[in-house]
């Protein structure tokens, strides 16, 4: 039932542990929580996917996108999902958000089944989806007004401004979405999500459309907010570096259809993480290689050529890209 719960302990507890990534595979049964072990100290499970499957029907054809996905995410953990396109990783996110219901199995939040969306599970959408007829402030204001209707008008306004200042948009409160850059739009989206004061932040390829510089700034921002606000983050991405840099756990999806969790990689690097130092470290290269190996394996059905050093893998992947290009 509950596979892949190899890292139910608090991410902070892994501090200073030498880098020894543990694999959690789909076949790895009963390694935590259930089975013969004594129950974990925390009595309520925070966020849990139990044997989730999703089937879409389009034009009379049934497409089984996801199958047997089970995952437990403890409070305050940063989880990323990577996988080839079409593996249903975004579908997974929409089910946690409650925007779509699983065909079978269930998503549980604080041990209650998720049946509909709610502000405690805020979503930052892939293409920001700001309401174009509202200013930056008014977009965030709508979230504050609906989630905290009991606060006074002044308080609500202050709250909306507070979050916008926090993501660095103090100067752009009264601009319309079409007047600001893509990065600022995404920041507004993040501010809107945070303004709901959610317990879980769901990020759907949040920085995919941004340039590298903006992306890294926003990644740092999200990491900072994750630390500050004690958020639990579930991020869908196709950027391996981003996944490794940000996450406590990287969930790797098999290829669809009937995709399921292939492997789970624990990133035990302590927080707060120093971007450059971490990315230059042996550990980072190792994590990155593991992810690449998995994706390579899923794509070509075999292991890549054995490599001794991570650097070589990087070179090889660059070379293959060059050939492909």
């Amino acid at each position, binding site marked *: 039932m509950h596979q892949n719960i190899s890292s139910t302990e608090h991410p902070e507890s892994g501090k200073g542990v030498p880098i020894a990534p543990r694999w959690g595979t789909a076949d790895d049964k009963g390694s935590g929580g259930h089975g013969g072990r004594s129950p974990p100290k925390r009595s309520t499970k925070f966020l849990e996917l139990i044997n989730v499957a999703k089937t879409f029907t389009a034009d009379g054809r049934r497409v089984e996108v996801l199958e047997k996905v089970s995952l437990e995410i403890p409070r305050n953990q940063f989880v990323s999902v990577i996988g080839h396109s079409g593996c249903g990783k975004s579908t997974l996110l929409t089910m946690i958000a409650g*925007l779509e219901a699983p065909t079978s199995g269930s998503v549980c939040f604080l041990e209650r089944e998720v049946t509909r969306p709610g502000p405690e599970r805020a979503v930052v959408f892939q293409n920001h989806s700001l309401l174009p007829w509202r200013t930056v402030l008014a977009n965030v204001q709508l979230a504050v007004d609906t989630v905290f209707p009991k606060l006074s008008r002044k308080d609500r306004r202050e709250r909306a401004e507070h979050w916008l200042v926090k993501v660095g948009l103090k100067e752009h409160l009264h601009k319309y979405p079409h007047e600001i850059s893509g990065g600022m739009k995404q920041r507004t989206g993040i501010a809107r999500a945070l303004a709901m004061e959610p317990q879980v932040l769901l990020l759907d390829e949040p920085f995919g459309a941004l340039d590298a510089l903006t992306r890294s700034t926003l990644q740092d921002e999200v990491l900072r907010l994750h630390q500050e606000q004690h958020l639990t983050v579930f991020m869908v991405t196709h950027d391996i570096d981003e996944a490794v840099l940000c996450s406590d756990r990287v969930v790797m999806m098999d290829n669809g259809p009937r995709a399921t969790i292939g492997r789970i990689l624990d990133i035990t690097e302590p927080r707060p993480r120093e971007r450059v130092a971490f990315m230059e470290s042996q550990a980072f290269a190792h994590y990155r290689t593991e992810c690449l190996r998995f994706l390579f394996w899923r794509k070509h059905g075999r292991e890549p050529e054995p490599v001794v050093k991570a650097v070589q893998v990087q070179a090889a992947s660059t070379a293959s890209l060059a050939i492909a290009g």
Partner: protein
Amino acid sequence: MHLLERAAITCDRLGFSWIAPLLRLARGDRPSHQIRLFLLAVGTPLLAITAALLIWLALATQVRIGNLAIPGPTAVWDRGVEMVVEWQDERRRAAEHEAMIAKAVADGLTQAEARQMLNFTEKSTFASQVLLSLRTVFTGVFMAVLIAVPLGILCGLFKWAHALSDPLVQLLKPVSPLAWFPVVYIVMNALITTPSQSGDWFPKSFIIAACVVCLCAMWPTLISTANGVANVERDHLNVARVLNLGFFARIRFVILPAALPHICTGIRLSLGIGWMVLIAAEMMAVSPGLGGFIWNWYQSSNETALSYLLLSVIVIGMIGFALDRAMIIVQRMISHGAAAQIR
């Protein structure tokens, strides 16, 4: 940004693209380029109108159809001037009348007594007829919008509502105002039994004409609204869902604003149709509006009738054009996003 440049951009956005080059010219921004733009924007329409007038003039002076002389542009212009003069005279008469009443009141009569004694009925002039026509078309289209927008929202939101209404809409949409008229006429005659009085704000002919306009003009708004509502971006609806917005909040904060450009396009089409339908409806209802004006001259054996009729055709065309431009301006003002180009 420079004030003139800002004004120029606003003019561009609102569809007065011929003013913008003048403003930029005043700023000294590439004069030859701006002059060319201005000539293109103003010169070409002017050229077309001049050409049309010349052809008309030639036809009027050269061609005779039996006994019928075609009135030329000058004759129609004279009629126009005549109408304006008539309107000013009538204004003066009304002002004099008011002065007399004021005097009578000063002499110790009450308002009502004075009005009764100095009986005055304002003669209907061309201008007052145009105003009445405008009032009728706005009333009719307003009623159409009041009915069509909520229905359209319902049809856009719910498949069943669309399935229910679609056959009816498709059936009623192509019905001509001339077919509606007798139905509305008979129903309204049965409904309104009090005889209409002059000076009455809603005489029967007005109500009938407005109802016919409403019946014919509501369909574009209904269809456009339904389309706009059905095509609200999925992401925006998802935002509403994540926020747990209620039904009415969802309509107010997400669906209506998103569909507003579509609704506006629908209203613009409705107004166009309404203005076209109105003339026919007024002619049949013998309303003292533009349609009534045309009807009267059509019935008269006066040989200048044709010039009055041509005048009314031109005025109807100009008002229709002005209404459309006005709606485009409204549409541009409310449409969001950088590039909302509507032609």
